[in-house]
């Protein structure tokens, strides 16, 4: 059989580490010696950690990224199979409770280099300007210590680096467009467009999504096979594994995979000195570092801070406020399923294929604040069977019969903003994991505003499904995504980290991942997490190692380092930003945005 253009029917017979069918890790990875102190240790190489690792390495820092899971060779390790992809998720024990508990694992938690970005659907909407002032506007939730304008250049930057494919005009929030063209649509997106159009609801299709529509550097274009959530073997869907980690390694970063960080160690002077971790052979090791960045996501980040409690920090690190683990958020992610007379075959095309944010903002005519989005999803057979078990109470013969109609169903994902509440939190359980470390105990429940929002939004989504022509519409209750648990803020009494992710309590301890989000909007958080990571990186790079000195306060905005993007990025950042960004004189060579950049 002739070899296809991308990929192969046989496994690669070389010693290379493959990241998709075209990309390989060519350079041998640098390994820091035992006892060698590095500049930065990043705990968790996921959406945020991957970007930080790449930026800090490119800027010349000595940096190690730890990940509890493997450094995937995607050609050998990943499969185009639902049940065979279990290993991509965080499967170690956690305890979940509360009145409406969160499901974890496959639904929202990754393990291995790339983290959750390995199995996200890849929807990449920006947050709206209103997200940054929810408390001021509504009296509920929280305000961010930064505004949309602070993050906007990083949104634009990451949309180029990921890259995001999407419509030329995106009408919601701060209206904008995408540099890379939209994707063709499948049956589910077709249904969403039809339903929305009938009801007069604006809708966009083909993005914004972190999937290449055309080939991009050494990543092939999408082949529309629908296995986005099982890890994109094609390499078309972005994970930091394929977009940023290779560049990080090329610039001297070390990825220490299968290494579980057990605790952050503190010195006598109130600075962190490094981390203790379990290596691949389960041996306890130490790694000294001048600064630590925790990027473990909303469950593992608080867990690590709490598990690092020591003399002087009895309540856990960075927790003088008592806020570590609190204000955990998920979005209501109910799946609305509709049966159509004609076949849909929803397993084709990316699940993230069309959406509307028409209901995103607070509407004073409703009895709740904030809003929701309606998006396409594309459950594969096992996921669909589980949804039907919940949505219709199906089992036995009923389940078998319903599943024979799998190809007649389409699924929409409702995505509703749940506000941050103090009692939704991550703590420690009595149970221990395989390393002997206390596991996370997650407590979650809905509040009045959340319930009203879900009720209204689910009904609206069902209405859209009916308008699309579905003869039967049902729904499954669930959540999507995870954020919060180490929120950022200006007030050390009510937040864990400052607006750049530095902990209020410990000058050389940073948190940078989804856990620092004060609110979450009804946009998928992946893009925002990566944008925040790029921003924190710019702050650190601008200040150099003086960043760990508490006495040197920082005022202002760090210069935006377009020149630190991975190789192969179109224009090295959005060309249209060029005119209003001053030429930077700081850093390696002081390259202009859009310039040739470092090789």
């Amino acid at each position, binding site marked *: 059989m002739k070899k296809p253009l991308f990929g*192969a029917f046989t496994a690669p017979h070389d010693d290379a580490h493959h990241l998709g069918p075209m990309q390989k890790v060519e350079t041998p990875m640098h390994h820091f010696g035992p006892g060698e102190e590095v500049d930065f240790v990043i705990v968790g190489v996921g959406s945020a950690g991957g970007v930080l690792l790449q930026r800090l390495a490119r800027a010349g820092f000595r940096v190690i990224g730890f990940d509890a899971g493997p450094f995937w060779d995607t050609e050998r390790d990943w499969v185009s199979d639902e049940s065979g992809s279990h290993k991509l998720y965080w499967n170690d024990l956690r305890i979940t409770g509360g009145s*409406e508990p969160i499901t974890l694992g*496959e639904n929202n938690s990754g393990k291995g280099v790339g983290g959750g970005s390995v199995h996200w659907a890849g929807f990449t909407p920006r947050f709206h300007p209103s997200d940054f002032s929810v408390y001021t506007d509504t009296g509920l939730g929280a305000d961010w210590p930064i505004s949309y304008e602070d993050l906007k250049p990083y949104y634009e930057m990451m949309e180029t680096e990921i890259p995001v494919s999407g419509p030329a005009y995106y009408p919601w929030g701060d209206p904008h467009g995408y540099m890379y063209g939209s994707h063709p*649509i499948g049956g589910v997106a077709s249904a969403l467009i039809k339903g929305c159009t009938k009801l007069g609801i604006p809708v966009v299709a083909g993005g914004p999504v972190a999937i290449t529509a055309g080939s991009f550097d050494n990543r092939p274009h999408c082949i529309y096979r629908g296995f986005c959530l099982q890890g994109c073997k094609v390499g078309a869907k972005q994970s930091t594994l394929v977009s940023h980690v290779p560049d990080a390694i090329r610039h001297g970063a070390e990825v220490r995979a299968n290494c579980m960080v057990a605790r952050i160690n503190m010195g006598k002077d109130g600075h962190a000195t490094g981390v203790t971790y379990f290596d691949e052979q389960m041996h306890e090791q130490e790694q000294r570092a001048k600064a630590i960045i925790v990027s473990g996501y909303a469950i593992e980040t608080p867990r690590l801070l709490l598990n690092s409690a020591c003399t002087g920090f009895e309540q856990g690190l960075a927790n003088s406020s008592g806020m570590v683990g609190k204000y955990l958020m998920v979005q209501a992610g109910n799946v609305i399923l509709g049966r159509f007379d004609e076949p849909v075959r929803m*397993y084709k095309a990316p699940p993230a294929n069309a959406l509307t944010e028409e209901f995103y903002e607070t509407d004073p005519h409703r009895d709740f604040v904030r809003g929701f989005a309606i998006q396409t999803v594309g459950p594969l057979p096992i996921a669909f069977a589980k949804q039907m078990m919940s949505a219709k109470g*199906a089992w036995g013969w009923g389940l078998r*019969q319903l599943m024979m109609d*799998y190809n007649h169903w389409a699924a929409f994902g409702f995505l509703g903003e749940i506000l941050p509440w103090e009692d939704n939190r991550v703590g420690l359980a009595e149970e221990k994991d395989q390393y002997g470390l206390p596991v996370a105990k997650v407590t979650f429940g809905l509040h009045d505003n959340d319930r009203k929002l879900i009720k209204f939004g689910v009904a609206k989504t069902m209405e859209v499904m009916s308008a699309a022509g579905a003869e039967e519409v049902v*729904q499954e209750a669930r959540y999507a995504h995870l954020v919060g648990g180490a929120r950022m803020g200006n007030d050390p009494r009510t937040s864990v980290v400052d607006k750049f992710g530095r902990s209020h309590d410990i000058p050389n301890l940073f948190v940078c991942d989804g856990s620092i989000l004060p609110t979450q909007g009804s946009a998928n958080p992946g893009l925002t997490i990566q944008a925040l990571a790029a921003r924190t990186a710019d702050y650190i790079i601008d200040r150099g190692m003086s960043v760990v000195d508490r006495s040197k306060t920082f005022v202002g905005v760090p210069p935006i380092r377009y020149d630190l993007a991975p190789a192969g990025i179109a224009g090295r950042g959005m060309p249209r930003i060029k005119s209003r960004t001053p030429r930077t004189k700081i850093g390696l060579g002081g390259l202009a945005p859009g310039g040739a950049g470092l090789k």
Partner: protein
Amino acid sequence: MSVEDRREAREKANGTFTSEDQETRRRETLPVDPYTGEELAPRPQPGYYPGYDTLSQQAYWDEATRNVVLDRVHNVPPIRFFTGDEIPFMQAVVDCIIPQDDRTKDKRIPVLNYVDRRLYINEIDGYRFESMPPDQEAFRLGIRGIEAIAQHMYQRRFIDLGRHEQETVLKTLHDGKPPAGDDIWKRMSVHHFWMLLVQDCAEAYYAHPWAWDEIGFGGPAYPRGYMRLEHGQPEPWEAEEVRYAWEPPRDSPSSEYEPLIGGTGDHSVQTPGQSGTH
């Protein structure tokens, strides 16, 4: 000719009847043709995609995927977690949760083996509901609970009940109202045990390429991918749907769709092992 006689005659004609299967056969129930009321004979491939065969496409799959799927088909793991009487007991439970009486014996998917495998190797979903013991303990408690309900309702062992009665016993768990075994249900949530049971069986069944053939799912699709995205069109190597009418066995308690307790849309009763979506 009674329904039983007709079936026996048909099975003899099909060559699928063997005397040692009598005990099993007693409990099997077959789907019916809604127009004639006749039972439908077991087929090698139920579903609306006759002749569709995902495994025939394996040369177009990448090697890693091909190995995983073929291993699933050809190297069925032995039963290692369940022991002794638990094995026939769980087989009877699994046969109710995912009935396969409409499949010929040689084309039945080894659901119990994969449920067992997960428990044996402790492949958990990354979390446990506070209201639940570890999965292994949940299954052992569940067996005791189901037996207690059978004794309470029929004064007989679950394993000795007919299929319809067994389904009726299990339906009480689906409804969240087990009439017996209070000591068990104090130790774990009925809802979550029910969902754990159904999802484990469903995952084992719908992970199998024969189930993909049945429902017309494309199966592995790398590196070839798909070309026809809209209007539910099949790829050249997929099959068009050819529907036929069938109904679950008469009065089967599992043929009705009844919402779980709390109704649908209740975030307090989500399934363990929930897949990702957005």
